């Protein structure tokens, strides 16, 4: 293994290129190495941990100042709202749910990608997740925090928000457990809690890494603070054994949880009797939309972060391409759901249902509908072309249009279904006020404040997990070690390379696997 210094590892941005087989043909996405630039374990530690240890750069303060400004707008909007009541929003008689629920569903949807990447991709053994899961999980937590803002303040009298919890009280009054809104309280708050646990468990080994680095650098206060959160982790194999089991179980628990949360969110709509809401397609369609928007947000954040923090060798172009494939698939699923809804509305023969959908596409909110359609269904279709999937600016553009489209999807579902209900005499047009806008923009302030603090103080890539997927992490990688296991193809190729570099004699290929035999290796698998 050629060793590279951390400096040259930063400089060589192999992750932006396309990997190739020795004969020059481009590698398939399955075969491409997950970590580029010929990094050693120490390089990975250095590349990630450095950003939590360095002097805070000016650019970070600049970004943080911007985020705090938006957070100030949030504070102002919340204060004005609490003082005056939700009447300051643009809500009117048929449209009792406006931007607040739109923003809630939008943020919760974004919050689905983190746990999806951590849990679902973990269960499917998608090892490329290791480079992006930490940041995606952090994004999940912060998005859920933003989401919880909206229902919390929409209840009007926020000082009695605890009525939503099953707490004994002097009125002997309990929550209404038959209401989907209460299911939401349980689903979203438990989702937030489990995501936090999952994130923290994943962090423990990395906190130990930066703790030990702080000790070496003689920064004892930092070492003590990190030591508190690292819980005395040593990397003992007896600990890894339980740790890995706990991680697997958490992944197994988080997978149905993440699917249930957005299903429950969709019940808020689907359990009611409003035309356009009362459909059984809602749970799967909402979950697909959540994955779609969540991946887009991960893409937006990581395209910037990998550039700013020089992580191109860890978050490679192959990772970007894989995420773009998921965006393409889920975007198409969502688009298919839009078309299915239209078909079912026509096929049902119910006049109200038919009107609700015709009104969506051609009524007063036609512009929202067509923004949604083009951003969610049409633009992601560009990703059928491989070179587009590997173009940074296009990935960035589509990740942003996706989140715009997904916001309009929730707007279309909420507002167009409500503003013209069964009685034409009660029809009205809804538009938001500046306080709706302030709360929405302010929620970005909360999100980016938390995300910038995360980038500054926490390893933004799961160091231990990335090391675990590097080829040299496998004991079979090393010369001469064989215990009868079949050797994975890519490992064999790596080892072959390493052996050639140490001047192996003329290779023979007795087992005809296309890989020359290793003259020193135990040949039990031949």
């Amino acid at each position: 293994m050629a060793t590279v210094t951390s400096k040259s590892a930063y400089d060589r941005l192999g992750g932006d290129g396309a990997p190739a087989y020795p004969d020059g043909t481009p590698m398939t996405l399955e075969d491409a190495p997950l970590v580029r630039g010929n990094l050693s374990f120490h390089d990975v530690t250095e590349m990630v941990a450095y950003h939590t240890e360095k002097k805070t750069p000016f650019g970070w303060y600049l970004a943080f100042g911007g985020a705090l400004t938006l957070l100030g707008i949030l504070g102002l909007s919340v204060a004005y709202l609490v003082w005056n009541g939700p009447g300051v929003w643009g809500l009117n008689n048929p449209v009792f749910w406006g931007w607040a629920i739109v923003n809630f569903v939008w943020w919760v949807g974004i919050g689905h990608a983190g746990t999806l990447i951590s849990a679902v991709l973990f269960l499917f053994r998608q090892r490329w997740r290791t480079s992006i899961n930490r940041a995606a999980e952090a994004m999940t937590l912060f998005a859920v925090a933003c989401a919880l803002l909206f229902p919390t303040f929409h209840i009007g009298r926020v000082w009695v928000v605890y009525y939503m919890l099953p707490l004994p009280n002097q009125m002997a009054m309990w929550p209404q457990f038959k209401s989907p809104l209460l299911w939401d309280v349980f689903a979203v708050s438990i989702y937030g809690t489990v995501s936090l646990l999952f994130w923290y468990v994943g962090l423990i080994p990395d906190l130990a890494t930066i703790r030990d680095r702080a000790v070496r650098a003689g920064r004892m206060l930092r070492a003590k603070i990190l030591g508190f959160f690292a819980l005395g982790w040593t990397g003992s194999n007896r600990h890894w054994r339980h740790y890995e089991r706990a991680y697997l179980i958490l992944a197994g628990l988080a997978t149905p949880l993440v699917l249930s949360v957005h299903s429950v969110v969709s019940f808020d709509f689907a359990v009611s009797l409003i035309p356009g809401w009362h459909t059984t397609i809602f749970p799967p369609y909402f979950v697909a939309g959540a994955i779609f928007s969540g991946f887009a947000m991960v893409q937006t954040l990581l395209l910037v972060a990998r550039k700013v923090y020089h992580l191109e060798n860890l978050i490679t172009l192959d990772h970007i391409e894989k995420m773009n494939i998921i965006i393409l698939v889920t975007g198409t699923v969502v688009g298919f759901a839009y078309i299915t809804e239209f078909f079912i509305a026509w096929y049902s023969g119910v006049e109200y249902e038919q009107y609700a959908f015709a009104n969506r596409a051609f009524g007063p909110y036609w512009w929202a509908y067509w923004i949604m359609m083009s951003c969610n269904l049409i633009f992601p279709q560009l990703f059928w072309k491989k070179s587009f999937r590997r173009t940074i600016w296009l990935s960035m553009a589509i990740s942003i249009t996706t989140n715009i489209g997904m916001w309009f999807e929730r707007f279309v579902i909420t507002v167009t279904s409500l503003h013209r209900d069964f009685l034409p005499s009660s029809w009205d047009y809804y538009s938001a006020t500046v306080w709706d806008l302030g709360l929405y923009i302010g929620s970005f302030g909360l999100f980016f404040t938390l995300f910038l603090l995360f980038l500054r103080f926490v390893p933004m890539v799961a160091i231990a997990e990335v090391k675990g997927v590097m080829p040299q992490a496998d004991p079979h990688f090393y010369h001469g070690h064989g215990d009868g296991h079949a050797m994975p193809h890519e490992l064999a190729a790596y080892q072959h390379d390493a052996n050639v570099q140490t001047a192996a004699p003329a290779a023979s290929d007795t087992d005809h696997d296309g890989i020359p035999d290793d003259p020193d290796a135990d040949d039990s698998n031949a």
Partner: protein
Amino acid sequence: MLSKIRQTVEDRGNQHVGLLAEFSDPGALVEAVEGLREKGYTRLDTFSPFPIHGMDRAMGLGVSKLGFMVFGGAVIGGLLGVFLQWWTSAGPQPNWWPTELNQFLGYPVNISNKPLFAWESSVPVIFELTILFSALTAVGGMLALNGLPRPYNPLFNSDRFGRATDDAFFVHVSSRDTAFDRATTAADLRGLGATGVEYVDHDGATLVGDDAEAGTAVSTRADAPVAPHHTTGDI
């Protein structure tokens, strides 16, 4: 009782007193563990920056029992979900239910003459609470089985050990192992390819054997300042 607890705590505190040997890579680590087990050592542990595939088998460790604990947590969470919703809405009482307890039940609210308690509408909350309690048990159980949090560990006395969370691979043989002998165990470790062997106890870490005599520098990174750290506590 108290002395027994003290004994357990002391045992746990002393489990990492012994010889700490560094190896060059995960492959060498697996081979070293296999070699040590052939020589009859049992109180072994390895330390690595990431979990090593096949190490559990090499160390003779079975599958973690955490799954059983989590199942218990799941059952408790699910039952709590049922009980919470039934109790707060004063659902129908089973035959065995003592009527004296009815005064503690929630207030029955009749909404559209729907049943006070129904399984169908209770599923989401039961499910979510099952997941919550399982996840809490998984994390709490993992920490309990690992004996974490554990702020003091004699291994922190070794300067080299800090790299176990970066890029170094260690084998530890506890001094409480019946086959443990400071000199022969150190020789065994070196025979298996250890690049440096240290004896670690509560007072500090000292090099053992050839390393100490020849004054060979163990593989600390040249660029890292070695700072005094981690007081040796009295346990």
